[in-house]
């Protein structure tokens, strides 16, 4: 058996042991899952080093579904794209496993939590290693389930299960499109296997489909475009792009380790991974590409504007995740797949760092999440402050931190990508400035300034206590991730990660030179980042009334941002309430009223007509004699009359 099988298998074993025997662990769930996770991480590194030199690996595990001409097997495929993603996923997952030992200590669901993050890691690894669309879809939904069950971890709190339901259902809506895309792929190509699809792609590139044939429509659409867009609907759900994004910020109701692992570094990037994996399909459709690019660009800027005014530390980071995912999707839309994945990887490290840092802050504040009730924490939490600072600089794209290299690559590729490219570049630069601003707003408000809390204050019913640095199990992952946030960008640039990834892709690396020199593009994005940081410094590092006055001045804009562009209210009004209302109405009036009414009506008709007929059966001889006499008289008279 090849060691590749062990990479997903070890976390699965960890899940099974911890999940089945959880009552016996009693707060020791990590002794099984953490070592297995570390082993899986080591093997992923080995897989990465082997792909660097050797060919990609393909292992068939077993035939899954055979029906008629339809065959799907569960297989493992490791190529350059998978290998490099595996390294990031297992690294972050291992660190989150370790961090959890400290963060979830004393939680009543400690062992359960470990079981589920191991199950999640297994599913995520299988998602990356899948070699066909249905296998991808299986683990796509499996990571969604893990996300659901981990968001609902504190199930007694209503916001937890509301958020979990929202996440699952919004993803289901995305998966509805994804599933239809898979069905259409099978109908068109007769296979769901990636390599076979790509082989047959040129033959179908001009195929068209009549979407409205059932309604006698005649308009034909390019079938590749329809496939690409349907699959993209799935990515929109999973990667929290407009308009299926509202679940992601709400998912912050879950414990912070899973926010770092699932809702920042790994699961939410699956949509981008899918687009890159299927890049030949997307390359074949200019329409789909431009939809992808615009969706990403709009998501990036809208999410950034929302993050400006949020007060909850995790929500700010969540909106920044959504915004950065927008960058990656935009990169895919302009064909810069390598740059998109590069940013995905560096983002995975520095965003996991920011979330774990936020978790460290929340941990020390006994559950407080409002940044305006923190302040001055840099004195008590030196390691957390330093590492969060590194993460924030990376997110803001300041050299030499990781985000600078990858974000800049996306921006310069956008600039080169044809006429709309300049617009994408401008949106990207604007978003970069907003990002730097809100990120450092968070840092300054939380770590500098005066303390906006009283020591010993009671939060959420816990015994309040003074802020303190987190234990080593929590700070070690922070330090490790800071190291990655510091070096991953430089390393990716130095060792030409885009060239490495291009071996998994059909598009050549673009060679056209930009009009502005690359150096001046870089300078612009660094300058806007610095401007954002300086603005944040002047507004938030010291007590100031300017933010309040600005909020008052631009009341409408402020309210738009604070209320997240009213997406939730809109969905509630247009989809949720009408569906519930309609269900009740149809049930009461039609199902019970009409359909069952007819059934009962038939029965009642039989009963009443029988009851009235029964009156004839009086049991009195005189009545029968009378009826007989009348009958005889009637018959005789008819007889006489006719004759």
């Amino acid at each position, binding site marked *: 058996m090849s060691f590749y099988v062990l990479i997903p298998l070890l976390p699965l074993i960890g899940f099974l042991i911890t999940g089945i025997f959880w009552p016996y662990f009693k707060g020791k769930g990590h002794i099984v899952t953490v070592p297995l996770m570390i082993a899986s991480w080591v093997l992923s590194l080995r897989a990465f080093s082997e792909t660097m030199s050797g060919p990609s690996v393909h292992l068939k595990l077993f035939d899954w*579904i055979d*029906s008629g001409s339809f065959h799907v097997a569960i297989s493992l495929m490791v190529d350059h794209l998978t290998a490099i993603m595996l390294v990031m996923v297992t690294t972050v997952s291992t660190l989150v496993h370790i961090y959890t030992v400290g963060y979830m200590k004393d939680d009543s669901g400690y062992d359960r939590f470990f079981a589920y993050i191991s199950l999640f890691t297994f599913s995520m690894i299988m998602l990356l290693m899948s070699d066909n669309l249905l296998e991808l879809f*299986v683990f796509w939904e499996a990571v969604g389930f893990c996300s659901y069950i981990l968001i609902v971890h504190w199930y*007694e709190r209503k916001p*937890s*299960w509301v958020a979990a339901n929202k996440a699952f*259902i919004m993803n289901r809506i995305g998966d509805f499109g994804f599933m239809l895309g898979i069905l259409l792929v099978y109908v068109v190509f007769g296979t769901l296997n990636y390599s076979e699809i790509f082989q047959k792609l040129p033959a179908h590139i001009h195929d068209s489909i*009549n979407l409205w*044939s059932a309604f006698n429509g005649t308009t034909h659409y390019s079938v590749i475009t329809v496939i690409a867009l349907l699959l993209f609907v799935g990515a929109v759900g999973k990667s929290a792009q407009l308009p299926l994004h509202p679940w992601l910020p709400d998912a912050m109701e879950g414990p912070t380790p899973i926010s770092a692992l699932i809702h920042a570094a790994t699961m939410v990037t699956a949509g981008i991974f899918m687009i890159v994996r299927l890049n030949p399909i997307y390359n074949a459709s200019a329409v789909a590409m431009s939809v992808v690019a615009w969706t990403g660009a709009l998501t990036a800027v809208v999410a950034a504007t929302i993050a400006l005014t949020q007060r909850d530390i995790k929500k700010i980071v969540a909106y920044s995740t959504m915004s950065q995912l927008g960058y990656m999707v935009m990169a895919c839309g302009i064909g810069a797949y390598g740059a998109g994945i590069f940013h995905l990887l560096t983002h995975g490290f520095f965003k996991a760092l920011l979330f774990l840092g936020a978790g460290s802050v929340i941990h020390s504040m006994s559950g407080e999440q409002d940044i305006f009730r923190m302040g001055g924490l840099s004195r008590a939490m030196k390691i957390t402050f330093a590492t969060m600072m590194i993460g924030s600089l990376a997110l803001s794209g300041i050299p030499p931190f990781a985000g600078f290299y990858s974000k800049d690559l996306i921006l310069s590729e956008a600039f080169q990508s044809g006429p709309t490219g300049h617009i994408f570049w401008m949106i990207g630069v604007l978003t970069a400035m907003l990002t730097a601003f809100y990120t450092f707003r968070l840092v300054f408000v939380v770590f500098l300034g005066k303390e906006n809390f009283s020591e010993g204050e009671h939060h959420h019913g816990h015994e309040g206590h003074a802020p303190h640095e987190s234990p080593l199990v929590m700070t070690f992952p922070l330090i490790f991730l800071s190291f990655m946030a510091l070096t991953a960008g430089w390393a990716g640039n130095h060792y030409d990660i885009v060239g490495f990834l291009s071996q998994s892709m059909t598009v050549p690396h673009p060679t056209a030179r930009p009009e502005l020199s690359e150096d001046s593009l870089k300078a612009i994005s660094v300058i806007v980042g610095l401007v954002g940081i300086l603005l944040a410094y002047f507004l938030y590092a010291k007590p100031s009334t300017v933010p309040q006055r600005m909020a008052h001045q631009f009341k409408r804009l402020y309210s738009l941002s604070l209320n997240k562009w009213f997406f939730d209210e809109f969905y509630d009004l247009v989809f949720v309430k009408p569906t519930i209302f309609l269900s009740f109405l149809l049930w009461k009036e039609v*199902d019970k009223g009409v359909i069952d009414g007819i059934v009962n009506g038939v029965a009642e008709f039989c009963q009443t007509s029988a009851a009235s007929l029964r009156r004839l059966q009086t049991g009195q001889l005189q009545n029968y004699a009378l009826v007989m006499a009348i009958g005889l008289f009637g018959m005789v008279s008819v007889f006489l009359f006719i004759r």
Partner: protein
Amino acid sequence: MTFLSIPILTFLIFFPIVGGIFLLPFMKMKNSDTTVKWVAVGITVIEFIASLTLLIGGNPGTFQMQFAEDHLWIPFANIHYTLGIDGISLVLIIMTTLLMPMCIFTSWVGINKRVTEFMIAILVLEGAMIGVFAAMDFILFYVFWEAMLIPMFLIIGVWGGPNRIYATIKFFLYTLAGSLFLLLAIISLYFEGGHTFNIVSLMGQHYSPIFQDFAFVALFLAFAVKVPMFPFHTWLPDAHVEAPTAGSVILASVMLKMGAYGFIRFSLPMFPKASVFFTGFIFALSLIGIIWGAMMALAQEDMKKLIAYSSVSHMGFVTLGIFVFNAQGVEGAILQMINHGVTTGALFLCVGVLYDRTHSRLLSDYGGIAKVMPVFSTMLVIFSLSSLGLPGLNSFVGEFLVLLGAFRANAAVGVIAAIGIILAALYMLYLLSKVVWGKYEPRSWALPDMNRYEWASLLPLLVIVVWLGVQPNALLSMLHVSVTHLLGQVSSASPLASLSGGF
């Protein structure tokens, strides 16, 4: 193959019935309840093991009826006692025998009056249900088909809830009314098909288009009530709500399948032209059923009603898959029948677990039970996820194959059916939110976690839910030959080119 030197199918039909008769003396005995329950467990377990020999002795490579038995029964009308099974009936029989021990375990606490009579009813019902799946003579089939109603009528009417009389009479009369059309069709087939009731030889005939249409409609009325298809479904929520847990499990898991089995066994191979002719009509009712059942489920406050309406939605996938006339659709439909049997059966067992403790099925009486019943909650979550079609668990494969088959036949039909999958997530997560999640508020009742009888009834189903999700081929491989033969019977009679739309 024989079992205790009795032909295996005859054994499977009459062993539980005879076992039930042997239980009769216990009716007068006092304090015999536990003994009777264990005897019933013994009978159903032996029955299950015996049914597994079908797997060993069966040949999956042929579409011929296997384990065939044939004896003349009523000479003047040429009625035979003919038994035989193919891959399709095989999987349904094994599902039936598998679920029966669980029905007895789930009645351990809930049934405490007239225990012996209850067990006899269950055992007789089991024999009759297997008879339905094994009968290859149309009159014999009809006898078992109607015989099933009587024990179920008693199970709901005697051991049911407060409104049991209304529910059981509605159930009985509704199904009986549908069945009369079946009898009509059987008798007219006898005259059209050469004075025989043998199902295999009736399949081999060619019937005039008008007769096909007439007979198809007659059979449709019988089977549509049983499935139940929209708009013949309103007996189902009432029957489920009033039935005891075991009754609900049998009703949902096995009896609903008989309508679909009827379509597969009779309507398609005997009246292929009419089947193709009525495809659009069946599609429409199936799609309405999928969406309608799901929306009704959203509006329910009673757990059993919610699951009952979800059955309408899930069975819509079955009827849809049967009539798309391709391998994925039909195999997916049969897989969905088994999966629905296992998953919905398990969900009713779960409701039974709660009901035994609280005597309430209302969602508003629950909340936060994960706190006090963590193991049970885990089970309920897994079965709910199976029901909403999470990949990796059983139901996904069946639903996916049906969608694939439908999409190939007509893309618009596939798209509408897929909406049902979104709605399934809505109502199942709604159920979980109301029951499992939330703050636990202690009430007058105690909620201990599962006892050993509940373990015995739920754990095997949990294993199957996961196993069929990972290894659906174990089941599909038994179906390939029979389904290919079935599709051959349909397509030889009418070309299907007209069906594929969208391209």
